[in-house]
């Protein structure tokens, strides 16, 4: 047993009355911690594309300009990081994944999101359609900062935030649910914060 460090407390303390919005084992943060498994890529917008692929085939691809012309929504969501911080009421601007997949005439039960820098994460199609996931390019009233995943990141607020891949560049349609980056290093294949699915086997 570690001795208690007299007078030491975690930086952020949870205000009363927010318990129902906090999944088990989570604590509120007022900041926006920056987490990353690698250096921040800086892809110029003129080189940026977003693609729906299936193996070697590109089903649909948008340039930045084309992407900006798609119908965008403002999203307000609580986000939950597996490192135990949650942030309530974050505001985003983005295009729903359902809109994107609808234009690609998809046919697959799973996707693997792929990103600048090589990060990947796996998701079931039913979790990213029906208005539950977006490709977000705005945060608060401005563009999404590079350190938070800009120019665009996935936003899947009902799953742990590692599923909301930063610097996302596309979705690869898959027949099977294969693990992405963190999922292959012991994190949960699905990652529901309300069932506290942090690690494989939870």
């Amino acid at each position: 047993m570690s001795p208690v460090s007299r007078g030491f407390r975690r930086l952020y303390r949870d205000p009363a009355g927010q318990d129902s919005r906090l999944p088990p084992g989570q604590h509120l943060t007022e900041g926006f911690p920056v987490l990353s498994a690698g250096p921040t890529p800086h892809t110029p917008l003129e080189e940026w594309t977003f693609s729906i692929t299936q193996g070697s085939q590109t089903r649909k691809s948008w340039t930045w300009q084309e992407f900006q012309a798609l119908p965008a929504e403002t999203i307000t969501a609580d986000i939950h990081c597996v490192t135990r911080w949650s942030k309530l009421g974050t505001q985003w601007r983005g295009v729903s994944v359902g809109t994107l997949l609808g234009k690609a005439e998809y046919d697959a039960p799973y996707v693997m999101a792929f990103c600048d820098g090589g990060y990947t994460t796996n998701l079931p199609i039913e979790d990213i359609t029906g208005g539950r996931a977006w490709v977000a390019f705005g945060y608060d009233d401005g563009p999404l900062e590079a350190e938070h995943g800009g120019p665009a990141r996935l936003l899947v607020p009902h799953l742990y935030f590692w599923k909301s891949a930063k610097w996302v560049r596309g979705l690869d349609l898959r027949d099977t649910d294969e693990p992405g980056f963190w999922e292959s290093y012991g994190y949960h294949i699905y990652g529901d914060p309300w069932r506290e699915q942090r690690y494989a086997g939870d």
Partner: protein
Amino acid sequence: MDAVDGNAIGGMLIEVFGAEMTAASSTCGTCGASRPVAELVVFRQAPGTVVRCRTCGSVLMVLVRRMDVISVDLSGLADLSPQ
């Protein structure tokens, strides 16, 4: 966000390997670059600790702590030799 280097994870590596590892020689399995573990690029503001090659950026090691057990994946390394 600024990365740190392999010096910072010396304690965790002793936990994993039972020996001092920051002076150990590492060889990248992707580009073949060799250097002491201390000079590798370390990202640890993440669900786990990701150690990358300073030459090509490939992932060399990933360490994930769950309670008091650390899982370590060394599949990106061609070689790791304690001094």
